[in-house]
């Protein structure tokens, strides 16, 4: 019996964790290439969720198609924030100004959505949440299978893109040394734009899959993003493998804390872990270069 409960919570944790990974990967990619933090990333998640919701409810679209819509909307938001915030501020060379500006964008988006969509939570239901499979005493919904399949596929594609394509290699080159990469004929501005668009697309897409799990309000992304920040630091800023590991870890912490303790303790446990990591191992789970900030 206990083994079943543990297995069930492990499944729940991995499903949730893989969504956190999608959100956190975007943050970590942007950090890797720009050494900047996009605070509005959370609101891209929320906006993606709303885009999927309205695509399904107003246009009668299919849920799987709505994930694609959320992805496209996220990409568009990423393009816009690069154009208005990151690109103009890049030449000022400040570490903090872009971060503060994106806090402003986040405030605009949250309260804009509040005015637009109202504070009452939306019930986001997919036809796949009802279909349940039973394997050896544990339950899977079709929805969680979709989440695992889509996020695994996305992460694999992203990985292959970074490892094997010219653009991916160029991205990693810019992440390692922007100036030298520029000398090799790589256009950093274009690659930075590409990184932000990709990252934001991941956020939008994660929103469409998180929406059925979360309480969908204009502030839904905030609860996710604080965890995503914790994941990015626990995994090591800019470190893709570390982020994946930390994302799954946080998902598991969340499901087991809910089962054995109290859901109110989740954030406390996650952030206590974050502060401990910062105190004793600030380079993250998997150490890499990039120690100038710690």
């Amino acid at each position, binding site marked *: 019996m206990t083994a079943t409960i543990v297995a069930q919570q492990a499944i729940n944790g991995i499903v949730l964790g893989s969504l956190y990974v999608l959100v956190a990967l975007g943050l970590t990619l942007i950090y890797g290439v720009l050494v900047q933090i996009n605070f509005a990333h959370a609101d891209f998640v929320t906006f993606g969720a709303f885009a999927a919701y309205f695509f399904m409810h107003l246009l009668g679209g299919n849920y799987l198609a709505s994930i694609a819509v959320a992805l496209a909307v996220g990409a568009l938001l990423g393009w816009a924030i690069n154009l208005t915030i990151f690109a103009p501020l890049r030449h000022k060379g400040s*570490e903090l100004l872009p971060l503060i500006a994106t*806090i*402003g964008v986040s405030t605009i988006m*949250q309260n804009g959505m509040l005015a637009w969509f109202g504070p009452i939570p939306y019930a986001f239901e997919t036809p796949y949440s009802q279909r349940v499979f039973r394997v050896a005493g544990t339950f899977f919904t079709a929805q969680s299978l979709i989440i695992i399949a889509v996020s695994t596929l996305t992460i694999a594609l992203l990985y292959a893109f970074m490892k094997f394509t010219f653009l991916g290699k160029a991205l990693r080159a810019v992440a390692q040394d922007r100036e030298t990469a520029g000398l090799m004929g790589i256009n950093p501005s274009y690659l930075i734009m590409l990184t932000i668009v990709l990252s934001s697309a991941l956020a939008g897409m994660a929103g469409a899959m998180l929406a059925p799990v979360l309480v969908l309000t204009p502030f839904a992304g905030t609860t996710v993003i604080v965890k995503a920040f914790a994941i990015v630091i626990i995994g090591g800023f800019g470190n893709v493998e570390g982020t994946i590991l930390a994302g799954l870890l946080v998902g598991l912490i969340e499901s087991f804390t809910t089962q054995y303790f109290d859901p109110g303790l989740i954030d*406390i446990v996650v952030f206590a872990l*974050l502060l401990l990591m910062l105190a004793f191992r600030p380079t993250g789970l998997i150490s890499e270069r990039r120690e100038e900030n710690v």
Partner: protein
Amino acid sequence: MSDAAVVAEYRGSRRRWAFLAAALAIAVLPYVLTGNYWHTNLTVCAINVLLALGLDFILGYAGQLNLGQSAFYGLGAYVSTLLITRLGIPFWGAFAAGVAFAGLSGVFLALFAVRLRGHYLAIASLGFAVIVHQVLLNWISLTQGPLGIYAIPPPPPIAIPGLPEISFRDPVALFYLIAGFALLVYVLLDQLVRSPIGETLTAIREDEISAASLGINAAAWKVFAFGIGAAVGGAAGCFYAPFVGTLVPDAFFITESFSILAMVIVGGMGTLIGPVFGAILLTLLPELLRGIGDLRLVVYGLALTLVVLFLPGGLAQAWRLVRAKLTGAPVSAR
């Protein structure tokens, strides 16, 4: 007397006049802007000025991006209120304890964070704010969680023999108390930032390695700045509780940190006067724009973003530009 001494004395006397004018403005304001609505707004302004001053000392002078100011604010409010309502400790004793507790938690966070810079510190302090908010929300036996604490009494009346008793049930008296305290904090911080301590902090902010080569212990000074800034934030919390009369954890959610940050940035970080006006502007602007309903807070975000993009020195920079235009003098750096 040397030239420098003459200039210093001139500036000093100008400062004294400015403080006197500020005290006068505080005295007159409740009679210009009358009625409960305006008195409430004025007191909110005074509390926000305190919050902005505290953050500005950490961010503008010591250069540490602290996103945890909401936590110090909340700790000050809850610690002082719980001491009053649970243990019956008199207001001013509880006030001192609340300020000290907030200051010490700032020191605690800084001890964690001194090795971190920039983004890491931002996230660590944000994490601290998340933890404090969650503890306030979930430690129900102590804080009553989301239900909140109600009927918090105002500070006790002050009775001076021969004069009528001053009761802080009167909103004007409460405004005088909080605004007067904010002015006191301003004067003290103004002394502090112009002292060698302020110069030390600025040196660390501008170039930590060079500062270290001059024998400055950067870590110790950052901890000091965090302690002071957090204590000022805690004082704002100690006043907030009896002013509003109720405490709920969501008043100290992380978005409150962002609002305080907006006040400092819009006003102009690294100056003391800038954040004062930033706090007043961002408190009153949404009130003046009440007609636009839920879009009120969009104004905060818009102001923050536009200032960062086009006027990173905030109102203080705008004022220097205007003054330079008027007098034809060159723009001074700070």
